[in-house]
């Protein structure tokens, strides 16, 4: 049986990982776009991204677009695997073997 991941289970991070894993492989999303979609504040989103990045679940790239700094975020392979395991653990709670 898969175990729940306490890092992912926190509500905002759960929301974040679900959103990022919805993106196709190789796609990255802009910080501002993500913030607007999820209704989080700058500080809140930044802190949760830092936590997920420190676990290797997401990658954060900073680059310039039209001379403006932009932050792009994507789920890593490790993050996708961890999230899938977490979802599977949640389902197994509802339908125990």
């Amino acid at each position, binding site marked *: 049986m898969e*175990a*729940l*991941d*306490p890092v992912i*289970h926190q*509500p905002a991070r*759960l*929301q*974040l990982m*679900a*959103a990022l*894993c*919805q*993106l196709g492989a*190789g*796609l*990255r*999303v*802009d910080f*501002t*776009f993500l913030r607007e*979609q*999820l209704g989080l504040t700058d500080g809140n989103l930044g802190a949760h991204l830092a936590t997920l990045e420190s676990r290797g679940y997401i990658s954060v790239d900073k680059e310039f*677009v*039209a001379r403006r700094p*932009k932050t*792009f975020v*994507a789920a890593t392979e490790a993050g996708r695997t961890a999230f899938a395991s977490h*979802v599977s653990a*949640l*389902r197994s*709670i*509802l339908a125990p073997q």
Partner: protein
Amino acid sequence: MNISPEEATQALREIEASRSTMRTAIQSHRGHYYLWLWGLIWMATSAINWLGNQNPWIAPGLCGVGLVLTFAIAFLQGRQLRARVDKKFVAVCIAALAFGYIAWPIILGPPHSYKAAFGFGMVVFMQLYVIGGIWFDNYLLWVGIAVTVLTLASLVFFPGLFWAFTLLCGATLFGTGYYIRYFWR
């Protein structure tokens, strides 16, 4: 970590809500704008030709407009959602386009002489060398570029020395083989 079935249900609901929000948001970032744009350009060019206007600048003009709009769409979409660019794949596309739109039709053209036909035969293979070299990240890229440049330059600028250049092309392949066998580490 243990949670109740109610908490698990709530978490799964939140996951589905977040997925659904993202699904809706990324729908507008798919490739449909490019397909619509180039589909329209293709149809317009075909219709204009069909109606009898054979002006040779219409197709390149429409394609030019299409390219500008393509870059504009890519720029606007890239501000929110962006794909990781595989530089090797982009280089392969550029190599294929450069051979397809420049080396073949503009420099070589239909083989109008024995020399052009000979050069054509060489550059066909060099296209494969360049693409293979980019894809597998090896020496074939440089051999392909060198022989292509020598062949095209001799045809365009030094037609009197064409055979001397092709001899040099052959020597480039032979020398590379020798170097690879005995000196490459």
